[in-house]
């Protein structure tokens, strides 16, 4: 090929580029108009500062299909997530109500909470783990999510709840937790065996009246907001806002919450330390235990 043909090719390419670049904004991902409720926002996660302007580009790239251009959870894919089939609708950011927080119920989550949610994803939903993105990208997304609700402009995030050191996981603690499971009526939603099949389970809806299912401990899957005992403790004390799972911060003491954590771990199919204590105990004393799931004024034991 004659070298000067390069010039022709270059001109052709340039012409094509001009045409295509000019056409792109007609219906480009980059051109979808996003409606935000606030001006630019920042997030602060450790040493990383997230910027919503950068987050907007990432949102268009990764999130808009489900959460939508308005951040209301009505992206083009939302219609396929049928709650009656066990799917969970995408989060509506305009309400600024978030399940996974380290802050008291009713308050805004911290930037780190949002960052962790993006990182962790939500098990049993279509929200994947975004660990593949850099810390900076996830911080940018956390900042951008805040622009969908005016609450972020007018309110401050709540203060993270304190998590005291975990109490010893022993049979006594597990038994106390079992009593609490009965007394606090956890079984009504989560079921006597923790299978998510309590008498109220079928009637539960979230704050948008969308059917929602309680967690099934026997599935062995991660919890929505983490997988450690600390995460489970935090879920009791903060509640999952926007769902029927309340905060128990005003109802139980920290030590009681740890007892409940220890008992709930026995409901999981994994070989947890608590299960290792509980299985032989049940084998030896199972007949002495009152079944969970009946109205027991005095609590079950």
């Amino acid at each position, binding site marked *: 090929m*004659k070298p000067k043909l390069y010039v022709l090719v270059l001109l052709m390419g340039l012409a*094509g580029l001009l045409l*295509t670049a000019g056409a*792109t904004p007609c219906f*480009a991902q980059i051109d979808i108009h996003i409606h935000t409720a606030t001006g630019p926002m920042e997030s602060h996660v450790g040493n990383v500062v997230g910027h919503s302007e950068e987050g907007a580009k990432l949102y*268009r790239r990764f999130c808009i*299909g489900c959460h939508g251009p308005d951040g209301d959870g009505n992206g083009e894919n939302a219609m396929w997530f049928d709650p009656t089939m066990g799917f969970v609708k995408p989060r509506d950011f305009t309400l600024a109500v978030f399940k996974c927080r380290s802050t008291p119920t009713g308050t805004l989550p911290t930037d780190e909470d949002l960052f962790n949610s993006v990182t962790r994803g939500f098990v049993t939903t279509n929200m994947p783990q975004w660990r593949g993105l*850099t810390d900076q990208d996830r911080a940018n997304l956390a900042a951008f999510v805040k622009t969908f609700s005016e609450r972020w402009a007018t309110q401050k995030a709540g203060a993270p709840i304190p998590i005291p050191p975990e109490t010893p996981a022993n049979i006594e603690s597990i038994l106390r937790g079992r009593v609490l499971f009965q007394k606090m009526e956890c079984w009504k939603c989560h079921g006597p065996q923790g299978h998510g099949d309590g008498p109220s389970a079928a009637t539960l809806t979230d704050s948008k009246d969308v059917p929602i299912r309680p967690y099934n401990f026997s599935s062995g899957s991660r919890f929505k907001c983490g997988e450690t005992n600390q995460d489970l403790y935090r879920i009791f004390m903060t509640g999952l806002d926007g769902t029927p799972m309340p905060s128990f911060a005003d109802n139980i003491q920290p030590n009681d919450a740890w007892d409940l954590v220890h008992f709930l771990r026995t409901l999981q199919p994994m070989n947890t330390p608590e299960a290792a204590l509980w299985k032989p105990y049940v084998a030896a004393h199972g007949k002495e235990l009152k079944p969970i799931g009946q109205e027991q004024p005095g609590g079950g034991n």
Partner: protein
Amino acid sequence: MFLRLMRGVVRSMRFPLWTAAKLATVAALLFTAAQPLYALPGLKTMAIPAFARKYGLPCSACHTAWPELNNFGQVFRDNGYQLMNDRDSPIWQNPSYFPITLRMTPNWHLENTTNQPVDSIPGGGGASTLVSKTVQMNGFDLSGMDFWTAGTLYKNVTFSLLPSSDATATFHFENAFVRFDNLAHSTWFNVKVGKFELDNLISEKRFLFLSANGGLYQNYHFAPAGDTNNFGIGDNQLGVELTGHSANSYTRYGVAVLSANEGTVGFGNGNNVVNAGRTYDVYLTFSQAFQAGSQGLQRLGAYAYFGERPTYAQTSAGVPITGLGLGNKPFYRAGFAGDFFLLNSKLEFLPLYMHGYDNVYLGIGAPANVPLATACPPTVLCQAPTWNGGFLESHYYVNPQVVLLARYELIRMDHQALSSNPDNQSNIDAYSVGYRWYPIMFSRAGLAFHNEYSIVKSIGIVPLSGNGVGLPPLAANGKVWSGSLFIGFDFDF
């Protein structure tokens, strides 16, 4: 002024004006064909087929620009095409969902190759001699077709099946494997069995070039003049692979044991007389990524392939028995590669270095049951051919829908197999530029407009693109320039 400039350009190329006019007309028609796309009302650009349909994610979630993976896509792939959210198994899919992707590229392309040996009298004849000429072809064409299905059989058990055809619909299995993920509940242990792409840090199967000359990495398929080793590190191979990765795939490793048959199925395959060695090759890879603030994710890795190929076959009454290769001789390829981002991840650089070595018997194409002194031509020193090669590829992502492409690639012979070969024989320089525009990127389908120009200079060997008459130049140090101009629509569904 512009017309005068164009006329000058065309004249200087010594192109007949009508040829230039036809070129321009074809280009104009193609661009015109693209115009209706501009008028589509309010289309949101989401993306790729089989998995995008399954998960409802835009294609840009997994791809910098499809088909090239970004790190999220790499994590997804490393997890065995699973998002790991306990919704990957088929039981969670709508029963009507079937994970099939189709991909094809209707296109117009021009291939131009210099220094090709052709008959001085077309059609041959007594007085005809071989002369060097430039050969040019152009016209509308089709690419091959991918008919890809992949997905999850059960949690942590995944598969891929890719019957791929050439442009005449002759199919072969480009890949077919089953994969067992997260063994021992660890992301560090995943096993794949079947035919698959080697775990190259820079994938040739998911790269962004399509033309005959640019649509392959020269380094991934290179063999020096006279070398009978048909191994290409870019070719899918048959075997078993153990891979592992950190949760975010920043750290990755792979160990593969592969049949020495260049991915060709069937022991008795007729094309396999020499290629089917009854030995196993080993491929090792490792890469580490790290964050560089707002610049994005940077990755550096190393790789090494150690293999053997037979140099002759067992015979029966003098007739080679296919698949019974003998006289295995070693070879290796080793090097490092990277994937670096700058300018807020808008500018990507993909560098690769490769060192190649083939045993002398492979290098001179001689059977190993013949003493080297006999196999080697008189007065010529025979030695193992070695070479160094590499490329630097760059992508500039104007936005998620427009990417500009460029690549420079070179191969330099270090030692020629025959001392009589010119020092620069088999050297290659390759240049590619282009762009891809993705007007349609739904989570149901994708369409890219692709424009690319690639040109390769090879010395004394037939260009890897196979353009022209497919023969080396008449002189051992003759330079062959092989160019491709490609304009097409790359669609998948």
